[in-house]
């Protein structure tokens, strides 16, 4: 069997596994967010919070909950890093500098997990486990909560109520993420991922001398890092590090963990709006883009155009032997079409076009299938745009799921899709225009520009992966990227929740012969087209200067 066929078979196996999980997990999550029963442990937690989980919130109250919880999260994580030097259980590691601590705190709270630090030399057990890993759980749960609020906006009518933020947050953690991550962590340990709280290991080497590694709760963090589409590695090499991703099987398993919740949420959506077919149409849109991108990625990486790869005889720079080109391509596409940003191979050393595919995946807004929660709400915003475009074509007031898409709804959706491109392009332009940021580049020419474009794309879309040649631990990058992450996460959430509130207040309009059938393949086609055109037109000039220029030259 050749490597190409093996790569294709891995993709097919992955599709099969995701298909098996789709209905049970999607239905389960719909139940989690619909039931009025509380688990006993949840009641204890609500008591600790001092919140009544049965109070319905309007969109403004829901948003205030999201923002308050996230603000406290940033502050707590910032302080934890700033006092690391005196924390016990931190291997004697020094405190983190203010600009880097700010960047990292924002990064993990926004589900981005951009890292301007080297995990193994900077972060001790306490910060990793009680700080960073905690945000891996709760930032993912916040994302799902906001998505569920939007789905309720479609499902409910004549009310402004969207549910209770604290209940959605706690249920996401307790009923979905912790059980899922627990099982996944045990599987990862069984395959070789480390899980201990010992200090620095010093072990002998074959040729004499010794080497030092740090131990840590790696498997438990790795599991939620993928399942919550977070992506912040315990070690600098992220999921390329053998202690995070030891075998070819764990590689495929981690890709599965990245994709399983975002895909299954389309089922949750279908169940909650009372038509699983609507969920299938969204799923089909996500799957079309995901499979298309993965196929393109495999093609360009196996073809390995580029001077260094031609001499080497393959695009193996930055890739591990055990994963190969196939496994690395599938991972790279999955991580950039979601908000994950974990890497099992280094995107900067992909072919020019391969690097471009990772960037385009993020630029689409990470909606195929996207981050936990953020993928679903991002895709539903695009669906609103798509029915609007279709409505313009036939001259009817657009409707989606029985709700009129009027001026207010379109304004909110338009604001949503303008936020990230504005952040990416303005900050990239600023970095190129200023004298010092370009000193951070490792590569020159088109690829150097790509390093900077990639960084702002990754931060603003809350991905967190990098063309890691860029030295991002400077005051400019720590601060500017931190702001991109903050605005890129919370401004869209404001628009999503405002839209949800507006939809929930409407009374449903009955479907007529003139209503666009949004559960049909025609709509899926329209939606894919709308996504590619909206993004393509926005980013094409920037992509042409970076990855396209590099890819076409080789």
């Amino acid at each position, binding site marked *: 069997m050749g490597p190409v066929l093996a790569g294709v078979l891995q993709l097919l196996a992955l599709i099969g596994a995701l298909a098996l999980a789709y209905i049970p997990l999607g239905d389960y999550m719909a139940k989690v967010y619909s039931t009025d029963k509380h688990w006993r442990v949840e009641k204890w937690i609500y008591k600790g919070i001092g919140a009544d989980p049965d109070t319905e919130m309007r969109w403004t109250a829901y948003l205030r909950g999201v923002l308050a919880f996230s603000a406290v999260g940033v502050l707590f994580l910032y302080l934890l890093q700033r006092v690391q030097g005196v924390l016990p259980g931190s291997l004697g590691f020094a405190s983190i500098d203010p600009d880097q601590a700010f960047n990292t705190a924002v990064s993990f709270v926004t589900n981005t997990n951009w890292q301007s630090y080297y995990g193994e*030399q900077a972060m001790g057990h306490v910060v990793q486990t*009680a700080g960073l890993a905690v945000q891996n759980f709760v930032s993912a749960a916040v994302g799902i909560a906001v998505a569920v609020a939007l789905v309720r906006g479609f499902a409910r009518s004549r009310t402004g109520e969207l549910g209770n933020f604290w209940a959605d947050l706690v249920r996401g953690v307790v009923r979905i993420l912790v059980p899922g991550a627990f099982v996944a962590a045990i599987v990862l*340990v069984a395959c070789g991922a480390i899980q201990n709280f010992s200090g620095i290991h010093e072990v002998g080497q074959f040729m004499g001398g010794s080497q030092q590694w740090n131990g840590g709760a790696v498997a438990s963090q790795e599991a939620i890092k993928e399942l919550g589409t977070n992506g912040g590695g315990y070690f600098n090499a992220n999921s390329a590090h053998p*202690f995070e991703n030891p075998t070819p099987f764990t590689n495929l398993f981690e890709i599965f963990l990245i994709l399983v919740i975002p895909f299954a949420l389309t089922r949750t959506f279908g169940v909650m709006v009372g038509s699983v077919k609507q969920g299938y149409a969204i799923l089909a849109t996500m799957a079309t883009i995901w499979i298309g991108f993965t196929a393109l990625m495999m093609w360009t990486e196996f073809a390995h155009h580029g001077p260094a790869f031609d001499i080497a005889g393959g695009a193996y*720079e930055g890739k591990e032997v055990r994963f190969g080109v196939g496994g690395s391509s599938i991972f790279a596409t999955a991580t950039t079409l979601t908000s994950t940003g974990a890497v099992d191979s280094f995107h900067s050393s992909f*072919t020019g076009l391969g690097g471009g595919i990772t960037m385009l995946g993020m630029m689409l807004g990470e909606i195929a299938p996207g981050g936990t929660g953020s993928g679903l709400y991002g895709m539903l915003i695009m669906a609103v745009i798509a029915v609007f475009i279709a409505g313009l074509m036939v001259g009817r007031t657009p409707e989606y799921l029985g709700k009129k898409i009027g001026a207010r709804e379109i304004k909110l959706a338009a604001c949503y899709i303008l936020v990230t491109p504005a952040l990416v392009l303005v900050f990239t332009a600023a970095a190129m225009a200023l004298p010092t940021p370009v000193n951070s580049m490792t590569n020159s020419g088109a690829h150097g520009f790509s390093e900077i474009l990639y960084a702002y794309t990754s931060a603003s879309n809350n991905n967190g992966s990098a063309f890691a040649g860029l030295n991002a631990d400077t005051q400019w990058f720590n601060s500017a990227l931190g702001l991109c992450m903050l605005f890129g996460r919370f401004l869209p959430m404001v628009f999503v929740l405002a839209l949800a509130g507006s939809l929930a207040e409407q009374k449903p309009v009955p479907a007529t012969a003139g209503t666009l059938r949004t559960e049909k393949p025609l709509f899926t086609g329209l939606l894919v087209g709308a996504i590619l055109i909206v993004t393509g037109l926005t980013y094409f000039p920037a992509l042409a200067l970076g990855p396209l220029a590099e890819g076409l030259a080789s």
Partner: protein
Amino acid sequence: MNNSVSNTARLLGAGLRALLVLTLVTGVLYPLAVTGIAQAAFHHQANGSEIKADGKVVGSSLIGQQGYSLDYFQPRPANGLGENSVNTQYKLILSGATNRSGDNPELIKWVKEAKAKVVKENSTADYKVKPFQVPADAVTSSGSGLDPDISPAYADLQVHRVAERNGLPVAQVRKLVDEHTEGRTLGFIGEPRVNVLELNIALRELVEGD
């Protein structure tokens, strides 16, 4: 105004309490539970899959090492590997890739030099390596810099050199490589690979056993 300030304070208080409670669940109880099971059921893996030779720990079977003499099988290059620049009371391995692009002059130079080196080192009196035989993994750095494996093709390429330098028959060394070649998981997951440290431990045992 006072009302909104106290409302905000109350909200932030709820946020803080939520964070602390969830930190207890996900940042203390969860990792401790996983660690407990991991240490009880998968002690070897959870502590780094250490591997011994002659009763001494010589590394982890998952972590590739550099610096083997030419008597032994060589690993992949690791130009992205570093050493810690902060907390320098330790000498930690800093995992990482080169992050050089395909058109980067430095990477082109590294690949060319690595290829010439592999050809030269592995050509023996009666076995000449040709440049096109050198597989890509032999001349490129991995993502982690710690890749424990090489491709079977790169191991095969080294068989003649290793046999000559250790005074072993080529067939015997080739058999050793075959025994240490791991195929794709379930026949299709990942790529076939040879663990360099395990192979070299077996080689040393073979040589010292003679």
